[in-house]
């Protein structure tokens, strides 16, 4: 029997639509970015009105909304911080995720009841740092990605503080926050949202001997790079739960709705299955199979079971992974006629093999046989973006179920 409490499943939400999908598909909390102080300057990012709408939606599910304010600020970025945190608290945000003590202080001064969580950008890698923040009165730290399962156990044994840890998604290959490659190579400040992902570029590696230099990458016909595989703990989630992780975090505010819904759905299922019967829990290959449908790179457990090796890095050409499109969104379903109303999200048509999936890990495949447009005219393909179609469905579906198609 597990003695642990069910951890929070925390998902990214780049915009209001993604927020709704993340929560509908089973996230207990989402983290979003606002217009200021966040690291994903290219993610949709929320206005205060959108945040309020997001919070209202989340409340219906009993879910929470966190806001990332995780830049490493420069002097000129500090203006307006107090007003910003005050406003976040007023719109009903549950916590902010911050790395810079200047912003932590600003938040505590302006909105004392707004929780502050220490961001992974601050590289919390040990239990004394966790203890430091505990003593500062903070309820939660997001661990650095360099911490192992064993180290998490030690941190939990030594410090009574909530631990948030990443379970899935892209990773910095550096200690987060301790990389300014982008600043130096492109003049874009990585720690204020401008990261150019220079670690994933191709380089030449030279040995610098006394008789001149040797281009090792040229000799081996393989460019040097530091690109990391993506993290996935899909096969090991109980280890993190038993280590005492309080919040299981999925990366990716820039990722698609299809990605967020798919990944959240799988981890929701695993957490629920584990708590339903910890003793009898077994990994279901369907969960792993489902995760790969949203994978964008090969997957790794990173530092959780020891130091990653060359096998956890990406060299050469990208692996060809099967890619899936979000083909359509279910708006309605009529059990009598067995027709679903589907909003087109990517081109699909008669003869296509598609897969429907929805919350609680419901999924089934079928071939599209009957397809009509909004006026009831039969059509071969749904070509127009966001067009409304009627599709004959093999099994019942629900509002906000999704239809995917292999590319």
């Amino acid at each position, binding site marked *: 029997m597990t003695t642990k409490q069910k951890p929070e499943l925390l998902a990214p939400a780049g915009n209001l639509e993604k927020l709704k999908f993340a929560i509908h598909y089973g996230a207990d909390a989402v983290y979003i970015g606002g217009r200021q102080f966040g690291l994903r*300057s290219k993610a949709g990012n929320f206005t205060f009105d959108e945040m309020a709408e997001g919070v209202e939606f989340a409340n219906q599910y009993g879910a929470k909304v966190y806001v990332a304010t995780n830049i490493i*600020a*420069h*002097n000129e*970025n500090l203006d307006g911080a107090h007003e910003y945190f005050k406003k976040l608290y007023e719109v009903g945000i549950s916590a902010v995720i911050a*790395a*810079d*003590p200047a912003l*932590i202080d600003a938040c505590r001064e302006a909105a004392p009841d707004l929780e502050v969580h220490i961001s992974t950008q*601050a*590289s*919390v*890698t*040990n*239990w*004394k*740092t966790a203890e*430091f*923040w505990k*003593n500062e009165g903070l309820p939660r730290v997001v661990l*650095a990605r*360099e*911490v192992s399962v064993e*180290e998490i156990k*030690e*941190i939990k044994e030594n410090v009574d503080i909530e631990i948030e840890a990443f379970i899935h998604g892209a990773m910095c*290959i*550096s*200690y987060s*926050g*301790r*990389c*300014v*490659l982008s*600043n*130096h*190579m492109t*003049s*874009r*400040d990585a*720690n204020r949202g*401008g990261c150019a992902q220079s*670690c994933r*570029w191709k380089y*030449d*590696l*030279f*040995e*610098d*001997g006394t008789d001149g*230099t040797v281009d090792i990458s040229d000799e*081996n016909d393989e460019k*040097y790079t530091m690109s990391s595989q993506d993290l996935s703990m899909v096969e090991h989630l109980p280890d993190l739960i038993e280590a005492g992780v309080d919040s299981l975090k999925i990366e990716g505010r820039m990722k698609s709705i299809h990605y967020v819904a798919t990944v959240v759905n799988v981890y929701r299922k695993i957490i629920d299955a584990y708590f339903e019967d910890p003793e009898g829990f077994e990994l279901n290959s369907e969960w792993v199979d489902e995760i790969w449908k949203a994978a964008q790179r090969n997957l790794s457990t990173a*530092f959780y079971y020891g*130091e*990653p*090796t*060359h096998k*956890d*890095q990406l060299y050469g050409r990208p692996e060809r992974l099967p890619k899936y499109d979000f083909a359509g969104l279910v708006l309605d379903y009529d059990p009598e006629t067995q027709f679903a109303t589907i909003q087109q999200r990517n081109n699909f048509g008669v003869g296509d093999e598609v897969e429907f999936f929805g919350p609680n890990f419901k999924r089934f495949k079928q071939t599209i046989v009957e397809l009509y447009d909004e006026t009831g005219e039969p059509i071969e393909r749904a070509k127009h973006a966001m067009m409304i179609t009627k599709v004959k469905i093999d099994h019942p579906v629900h509002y906000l179920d999704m239809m995917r198609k292999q590319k």
Partner: protein
Amino acid sequence: MNQYKPELQATAKDLDELFRLSDAGADSIYVGHQDFANRASGDLTIDEIKQATEHLQAQNKKIYVMVNAIYHNEHLKALPSYLKQLESINVDGIVAGDQAIYQVIKDIGSSLSINWHPSTLATNYQTLKFWHKRGLSRATLSNELSLDAVREIKEQVDFPIDIQIHGMTNIFQSKRRLVQNYYDHVGQYYDPDQKRFIKEDRKEDTHYPIFEDKNGTHIMSNEDLMMIDHLDIILDAEIDGLKIEGILKETDYNEAIVAIYREAIDTYLADPEAYQQKKSGWKQRIYQIQPNDRRLNTGFYFKEQIY
């Protein structure tokens, strides 16, 4: 009368370099050991640190010991006794970059002065004020700041501020073995003592030193910082510590660089006009000893960043 006296800081890889840089005019020297230090230019034992401390303090100079690794639980076991040893040696301060240091120093009741040096994370004055309240004595600013920002920070805080004025800067640290991993990937023998650099694809003149140690993989800047002809701005701003980073450089080079900056700083403080007349000469002396593959520039001190 102006009491301002800047501290010319340098790094030493061994005792020989420490003695020579001190003789060349450094006011303080950074040393460390990779067991607890990130990017110390060489590993000094506790006995060597003791010897160095006695030597420097006899001349009214200072020694700072780097314990700026990003700590994992494992580090924390031996760190308290290391800090206690440093305290009993009476070093002038420790250089730290992990937030845990504030907790550890408090726990062991240590009186060691903390020079807060969290590499990329010392970018604004409010942050530094936060850490000052928790015990920092002085702070080393991040290198990716404009001189205007440095000046503004100096005006806002009432503790000493250090900046780097010469040498390469660190731009990346990973816990992974990113060099060895590549050799393993291509199936070639990895010699850890070999010097290496990486070059951006299709950018011929790039040269980023890369190396591994106990703390992972470090990448250094493409250029060496050189502020010899802008010392007037820095000294007018009364920046407290001016640091020459000597990592991956020969002692001869570092010794010459320290001597040049010593002369330049003293000249400016005594006679600003003379500094203006002589600065192109110092610059030329630096160019003469600068390795061919290392360009010189002013880093981010006069550069705009976007984000």
